[in-house]
Every structure is written in structure tokens, then in C-alpha cells.
């Protein structure tokens, strides 16, 4: 297989990953690294580097649509980015010190978890209308547009959310993924932030988190331009197409299929790591 054929196949695979990721809301980043390592036999370090770059592209590309709706909260996002960027640096520090097989194992577990989480119907945590002193001091409480007009919300348990975000950043730096699932978990389960606000704010933070590790990956020589090029362009085109079709598609069954794909890739990743292929 020469460079031209390889590039075209990777563009195609990345397009599908970005397309399904946007359509199901699960993000394409999580399937990219398994796709590159298991199908295209790319070394996991190159795969993580290319995936990080594409995560920045999709997060920034999608931000336009999200921001227009007025759901995201820039103060919550900025404050938690302190945790995710420090976590990302910690993740890149780990990535250089653990074996590729260990990265494969962690990746496999994260895939299985993501597959499991995405089949559940999320339950909104009960509304708590007592302001939390720390969150209030940090100016995090806000208002979002709902069908019944602007709706106020209060943010809670800032330290717990902050710690989880450090973990999300570390996974992002280690695995080259957006860790959107962990970010949303921290915001809506721990901090009690409404779904629409947490999802959009999380998307916003993903690009900044990935940029923190991308700089380190670049200087380590993990970002190969000829590999990152088809991955980034493919994922970006796929996710923009998916986002455009979102309004016209019923996604529930698709979510199940994609969740099954993610879980299967997780199992394959674990097998690959334990059998010494990664």
C-alpha cells in the first residue's frame, strides 16, 4: 500500500468516525486510535498524536453551532480548564513513561466504559436550588434558555468536579481523546449542571485540553504530518456533515450500533495489548 492509497483509506475511515461521532453525540475521537492501530497497524504513539489534532479541529469547528444557542457557560469552562490542562500535562508525562501495551489496556477499558455509558439513558440529577458559596464566589451560577423562558441554575460541589476534570485531562493527554464522557459526568453528576449546559461547555473545553497535550506531543515527534493530515481533514469533514444531518435523523438505534462498535473495539484493544500486538 503506497502513501496515496493509505491516505485515501485513512480519510475514508476518519470521515466515518467523525460522521458517526457527531450523529450519535459520542464524539469520533474515541474510535480513531483503535481504528488506526488495529486496522491500519499504526504505532499507538503516532495514532494518539494524530487523534489529538483532530479532536482540536472538531471541538473548535462545532463550537460555532453550540455558542449560538447560548447554553455554554464560559466561566465554568475556563475555571475547569485549569484542571483539564494540568491533567493533560500529567497525561503526556505518563504517556512517555508507560509501555504502549499499558496505554492499550487503559484505552480498552475507557472504550468499554464509553460503550456502556452511551447506551444508558442519562438521568438528570435533581435540581438543587440552594446556592453553593464557593460556586457563587466563582461566578458559576447562570441562566440558560428553555422552552419556558430563561431558567436559572446553581452549580455545586466544585472541588469534586475539579478533581474529576483533572482525571479527564489526564486521559485526554494519555490517549489523545476528548474525554467528553468523563467531562460531562463531572459536570452533570458531580456539579449538578443542566445537560445542555454541561454538554456544550464540555465541547468547548475539549479543544483547550487537547491543545495542552498537543504541544508536548509535537515536540516529542509523535505528530506525523502525513498521518495527521488525512485524519484531521477526514474527521473534520465527517463531523461537520454529521452535525448538519443531525436534525433530520433518528439517532437512537444508531447510538446502539455505535456503542456496540466502541465496546468491540475496546475488547479488541485489550486483546491486542495483552497479546503483545500493541
Amino acid at each position, binding site marked *: 500500500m503506497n502513501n496515496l492509497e493509505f491516505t485515501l483509506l485513512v480519510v475514508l475511515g476518519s470521515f466515518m468516525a467523525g460522521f458517526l461521532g457527531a450523529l450519535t453525540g459520542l464524539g469520533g475521537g474515541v474510535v480513531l486510535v483503535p481504528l488506526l492501530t488495529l486496522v491500519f497497524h499504526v504505532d499507538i504513539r503516532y495514532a494518539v498524536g494524530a487523534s489529538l489534532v483532530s479532536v482540536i*479541529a472538531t471541538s473548535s469547528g462545532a463550537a460555532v453551532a453550540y455558542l449560538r444557542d447560548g447554553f455554554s457557560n*464560559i466561566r465554568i469552562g475556563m475555571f475547569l480548564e485549569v484542571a483539564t490542562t494540568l491533567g493533560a500535562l500529567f497525561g503526556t508525562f505518563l504517556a512517555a513513561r508507560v509501555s504502549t501495551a499499558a496505554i492499550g489496556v487503559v484505552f480498552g477499558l475507557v472504550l468499554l466504559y464509553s460503550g456502556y455509558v452511551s447506551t444508558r439513558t442519562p438521568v438528570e440529577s435533581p435540581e438543587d436550588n440552594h446556592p453553593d458559596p464557593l460556586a457563587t464566589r466563582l461566578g458559576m451560577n447562570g441562566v440558560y434558555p428553555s422552552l419556558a423562558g430563561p431558567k436559572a441554575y446553581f452549580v455545586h460541589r466544585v472541588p469534586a468536579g475539579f478533581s474529576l476534570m483533572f482525571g479527564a485531562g489526564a486521559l485526554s493527554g494519555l490517549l489523545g481523546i476528548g474525554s467528553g464522557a468523563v467531562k460531562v459526568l463531572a459536570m452533570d453528576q458531580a456539579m449538578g449542571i443542566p445537560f445542555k449546559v454541561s454538554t456544550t461547555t464540555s465541547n468547548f473545553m475539549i479543544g483547550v485540553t487537547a491543545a495542552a497535550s*498537543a*504541544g508536548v506531543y509535537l515536540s516529542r515527534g509523535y505528530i506525523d*504530518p502525513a498521518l495527521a*493530515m488525512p485524519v484531521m481533514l477526514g474527521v473534520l469533514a465527517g463531523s461537520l456533515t454529521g452535525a448538519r444531518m443531525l436534525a433530520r435523523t433518528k439517532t437512537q438505534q444508531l447510538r446502539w450500533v455505535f456503542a456496540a462498535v466502541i465496546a468491540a473495539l475496546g475488547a479488541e484493544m485489550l486483546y491486542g495489548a495483552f497479546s503483545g500486538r500493541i
Partner: protein
Amino acid sequence: MFRKSDWTDQKIEVVIANLLRAGVTLSAMVVLVGGLIFLIRHGLSIPHYRAFAGEPSDLREWKGVVRAALALRGRGIIQLGLLFLIATPVARVAFSAFAFALERDWLYVGVASFVLAVLLYSLLGTAL
């Protein structure tokens, strides 16, 4: 308890959204041009990503990348486009710090500056 400046926040978000879109568009175009040059010159060579060797040192830091791009090397141009992409969220954080200063929200000027410092350390500092 709620900030009076929500309208200002909204305006800031619109600017940020446009900034991000411009960054991604510019980066994608540069990467595409570099990719075409690379494929025209090396399309028939065999890729070798199975074994990890790491990139040559000039594609690891921005000065080398700029030199390679100016020499019209395909891989150098792609890498320059990727640098634009990595710089996009950094620019967004820098703009947020500036916008918080306009709102006289000094606490968040501090928070945004800290995030900016971490990003610059990652981008400009040597490998950990």
C-alpha cells in the same frame, strides 16, 4: 447572585465562535495544500507507521516547521497548518483573558492567564 453582564458574555461568545471557525478554516486549508504537495511528490512511496521512529527534529518545533514550510516541503506545510490548529484554542484563551479584563472580572483574568501559561508552557517549553 447572577451576573448582570450576561449580554456581554454572549457577545464575547460570538467573537470566540468566529475566532475558532477562522482558525480551523485556515488550518484545514493549509493542511490540505501541504497534503496535496506531499502526495504529488511522495504518493507512490510506502508509508511506515508500524514502527515508531519519531519525527525529524525540524518538524518538532515551530522554527523548524516554519523553515520547512517556507522551503515548500509538503510535510512542513502540513505541520504549519497543524500549528495554526493548536494555536486556535490558545488564541481563544488569550482573548477570554482580555474580555474578562473588559468586564473587570479580575478573578477570571487570573484564571484565564493561568490556563494560558500552561498552554504556552506546553507549546513553547521543551518536552517534559
